[in-house]
């Protein structure tokens, strides 16, 4: 016997399963005040600012802002290590240090995950399952390369560049540090790293790990601070190579700053990834891909699939499927193991996202937000879908960097390609179809550094990552990730 209803059938998905709190309980001690890590030692700083827990708004710690003098000390320590120890060390020995770092990251992974979640706001599910394990994998991967560099540059004679200045973003603090540090160290360079000012804590725990593994002093130096400090690192005359991940605007400032110098550079900047869903895709799985594409890490992902392009013949139905899946996502305490969507990283970023929602509404978008309950303190935003938008709209052209998906349609593969490429950016894109010829044709026509077929946001240390056009240049990960840190390769 089956039940029949007269009303349009609807599933009771939201709140179908109340889950008791399941907080991650591993302790992650936080000091009241942090300085810098220079020449293998923690040093005090001044001009302190605060870092807050975005899930509560509470202050976690005071952090020093590095002055030009602090940066200069760090660069001197890095130069001394490059000339004295690290540049001369055999690749095999450098590799041993990288393996040690990787293992120590694994050993302290739970603590790192908790600290990252507290400081960043991203759910523990992600820091535990993605950020920290992937960071360890990057160290393992590049450890293996350290004594095989000549095979990465056939016919070349690879040499270290010297001192690398690295400025990293707040969206994947520990992972981005690892992406940049591991290839730099494997190739014999030393580093001055500047973490993001809203998420400095996991880098300070990394410094502890570097002490534990007896990394020679000065090989990695960490200077805290905001944009001014970052500018001092990038612009320091004794820096040989700059690596930046962040917004396209700041990337432009850095490129102007280093113009005319001999500094080598890699830039990993913004994006407005297109996620193309054809009518012949496996639709429920394409929905899952869209969820991973835009709601992973609250959408604070440069390669996020923030523009959904869906074939017009299935658009309405697909949107229904998508909303049904989004309704099930749990937003809340990032330390709870069942939280799918955590806190927006800062009150400033929340303001930026809300500004874009207003712009979208004014330009005629239908804004839909998940009915899931949202915590009343901290910086939270429910997953948001904007339909009824067009290529001309601001929210379709500019990077929002939040859990906001724009939905557009196309009629033919040619139009899908045209619309997907109609952006200043070119970092990542996704294509969903069960027809292989279509996947290959479309993937090759997309102007983006990374294209995922029947998947999204899949990362592997062996796979190069980076953009074209306003999304930057240079690659991180894989063999290509080594090239950015070596001389004598052409």
């Amino acid at each position, binding site marked *: 016997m089956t039940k029949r209803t007269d009303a*349009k059938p609807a599933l009771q998905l939201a709140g179908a399963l109340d889950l008791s709190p399941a907080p991650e309980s591993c302790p992650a001690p936080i000091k009241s005040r942090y300085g810098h890590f220079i020449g293998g030692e923690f040093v005090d700083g001044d001009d302190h600012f605060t870092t807050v827990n975005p899930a509560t708004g509470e202050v976690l710690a005071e952090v020093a802002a590095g002055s030009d003098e602090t940066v200069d000390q760090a660069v001197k320590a890095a130069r001394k290590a490059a000339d004295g120890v690290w540049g001369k060390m055999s690749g095999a020995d450098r590799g041993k240090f990288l393996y040690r770092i990787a293992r120590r990251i694994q050993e302290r992974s739970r603590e790192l995950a908790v600290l990252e979640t507290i400081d960043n706001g991203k759910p523990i599910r992600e820091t535990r399952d993605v950020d920290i394990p992937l960071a360890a994998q990057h160290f393992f991967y590049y450890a293996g390369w350290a004594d095989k560099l000549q095979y990465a540059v056939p016919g070349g004679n690879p040499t270290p560049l010297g001192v690398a200045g690295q400025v990293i973003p707040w969206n994947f603090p520990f992972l981005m540090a690892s992406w940049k540090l591991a290839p730099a160290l494997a190739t014999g360079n030393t580093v001055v790293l500047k973490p993001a000012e809203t998420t400095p804590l996991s880098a300070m725990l990394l410094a502890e790990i570097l002490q534990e593994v007896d990394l020679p002093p000065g090989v990695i130096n960490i200077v805290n601070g905001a944009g001014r400090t970052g500018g001092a690192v990038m612009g320091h005359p004794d820096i040989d190579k700059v690596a930046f991940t962040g917004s396209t605007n700041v990337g432009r400032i850095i490129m102007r700053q280093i113009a005319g110098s001999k500094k080598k550079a890699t830039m990993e900047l913004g994006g407005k990834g297109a996620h193309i869903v054809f009518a012949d895709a*496996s639709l429920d799985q394409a929905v899952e891909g869209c969820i*991973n594409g835009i709601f992973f890490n609250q959408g604070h992902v440069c390669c996020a699939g923030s523009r959904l392009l869906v074939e017009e013949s299935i658009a309405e139905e697909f949107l229904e499927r998508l909303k049904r899946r989004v309704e099930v996502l749990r937003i809340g305490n990032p330390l709870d*193991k069942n939280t799918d969507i955590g806190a927006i990283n800062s009150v400033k970023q929340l303001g930026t996202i809300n500004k874009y929602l207003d712009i979208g509404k004014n330009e005629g978008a239908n804004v839909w937000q998940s009915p899931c309950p949202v915590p009343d303190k901290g910086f939270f935003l429910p997953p948001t879908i904007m339909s009824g938008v067009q290529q001309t709209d601001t929210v379709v052209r500019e990077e929002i960097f939040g859990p906001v998906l724009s939905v557009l349609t196309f009629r033919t593969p040619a139009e899908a390609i045209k619309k997907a490429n109609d952006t200043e950016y070119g970092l990542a894109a996704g294509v969903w179809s069960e027809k292989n010829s279509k996947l290959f044709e479309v993937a090759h026509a997309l102007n983006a550094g990374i294209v995922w077929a029947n998947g999204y946001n899949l990362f592997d240390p062996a796979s190069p990552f980076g953009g074209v056009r306003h999304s930057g240049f240079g690659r991180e990960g894989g063999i290509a990730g080594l090239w950015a840190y070596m001389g004598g390769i052409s």
Partner: protein
Amino acid sequence: MTSTFSPEAAREWRSARVDDATINARISRVRSRSIKTDTKVRLLKLALSMIDLTTLEGADTPEKVRALCRKAEQPYAALPDLPHTAAVCVYPNLVPVAAAALGADRTVKIASVATGFPSGHVPLRLKLAETEAAVAAGADEIDMVIDRGAFLSGDDEKVFNEIAAIKGACGKARLKVILETGELGTLDNVAAASRLAIAAGADFIKTSTGKIKPAATFPVVLVMLEAIREHYLATGEMIGMKPAGGIRDAKTALHHLVLVAETLGAAWMTNEWYRFGASSLANDLLRQLQRREDGYYQSPRRFSVD
């Protein structure tokens, strides 16, 4: 009302496409759900109430079935407030024994496998006779197997018509259609067979006989739940789901409940629409529930074998 086969509909069932890699990714998210304290107790009891306590051995005897019925009615005397299981599941010959043991005013239902279980390779008239005999002997539910040979050879019409005929023979008994997903080989086939079975009149779709491995894997169950969802949204008609085979521990069962809650929603969180076909699962649920009382785990020997 009997269903009629249409080749156009069959083409649509067969065109269902499933991306295995993403299904696995979705499943790993479900399996990382952390179920604690109050939720855990609630779901453990719910899972217990959803069990079709099963014995399907050549060696089954009346006394074995009477033991099963006692366990179904009162799973654990030390915790008398626990729910009874949804049903017992036995061979047709043993339905009269179960009916006598559970009584006319029974709360535990009697399910019986029929249709040449587990292979299904017997003539339709025998399948119908077996079904009618089981229902006449008191079965409330019939668990039939589809003809996988016919399905894999592309004879959807035969599979469909057999299900429709058995449904006709069930009378008031609810019909669970076993796809035996372990023999279908691909998730695309599971999706097609689910749609076929639903269209032909299944009240429930069920993964497995328990005689073939793999049985009720998470990816297979998700694909079947998606077919149920599609049918409900198109017609308003609810279809039940029964994973069976290989679900032995409480944690697995609870993650299955998370999967159904996140795919079909609250209406399916009842034994009217969701069942576990299992024999040893009950004891692990009981052990977990007793742990909530004691604060530590009892030896598995504390719980009766059947």
